[in-house]
């Protein structure tokens, strides 16, 4: 059966992602050197940066899918967008939590309303709002249309989050570049970025499966009613 082959393929991808994250964590914690200025706690970079990347990647995918939906009205684009928001919200919340854990021992505080932190919190709330919009609309087509509009408008904040550290004065440091990180720390960072991207792919495929099943159930019960 087609569905079962796909489920099995997803399981292999899931196992690959799991293995990659295991290697990434071991490398980050036991192989990479500590930082000269921050000491051991700097290792939080290896999870904070990848979760932030996945959050933004996810919202970018939502943005593209929302535009595609409005152009083509294919419910599959809406299903991918919905899946992307849910996963993006999970990873953005995780980014904020990890950032807070990193801030306390280095900056000396858990939280401050600096532009980077504030715009990130707004980003999280906006996409939680997207999920609320979906609960509000009953008719699947209307729901998809409204969601697509929110998915496009919400993306305005994503580049603002990224550029906030260059546009305004912040406590948060500007983005690191390949030159500002020593090579023996850059490689484990790249590995973790790749590993988290695999996790993202796996979660998206599974979340899409769920959206597919939900849509089928919604259609069938609507016919029966």
């Amino acid at each position: 059966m087609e569905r079962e082959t796909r489920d099995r393929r997803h399981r292999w991808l899931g196992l690959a992602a799991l293995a990659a994250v295991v290697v990434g964590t071991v490398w980050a914690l036991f192989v990479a050197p500590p930082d000269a200025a921050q000491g051991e706690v700097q290792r939080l970079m290896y999870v904070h940066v990848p979760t932030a990347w996945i959050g933004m990647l996810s919202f970018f995918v939502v943005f593209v899918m929302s535009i595609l939906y409005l152009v083509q009205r294919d419910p599959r684009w809406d299903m991918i967008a919905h899946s992307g928001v849910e996963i993006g919200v999970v990873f953005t919340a995780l980014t904020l939590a990890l950032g807070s854990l990193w801030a306390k021992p280095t900056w000396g505080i858990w939280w401050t309303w600096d532009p980077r932190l504030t715009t990130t919190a707004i980003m999280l709330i906006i996409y939680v709002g997207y999920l609320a919009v979906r609960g509000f609309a009953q008719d699947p087509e209307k729901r998809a249309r409204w969601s697509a509009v929110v998915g496009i408008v919400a993306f305005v904040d994503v580049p603002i989050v990224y550029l906030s550290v260059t546009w305004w004065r912040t406590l948060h440091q500007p983005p690191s570049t390949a030159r500002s990180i020593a090579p023996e720390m850059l490689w484990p960072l790249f590995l973790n970025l790749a590993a988290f991207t695999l996790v993202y792919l796996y979660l998206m495929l599974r979340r899409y499966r769920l959206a597919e099943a939900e849509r089928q159930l919604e259609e069938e019960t609507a016919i029966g009613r």
Partner: protein
Amino acid sequence: MDGSLPYLAAGFGLTWIVMVLYAWRLEARIGRVRDGLRRHDESTSRVEAPGGRTAGAGPPDEPDHRPEEAR
């Protein structure tokens, strides 16, 4: 190891827990919706099979094979 250990443990632990828990919850949600679909298919096919065009008439009155699952 310096005083970083609790922060590292919390950070990496939280990351792992959130990802694994989310993936696990996803499977549970998929399973639940697919169960609902299967039940729905069974109930509609049971209505259609014996009497022909009775689909949409609601759950069947005939004795059920799995009464606990019928809605």
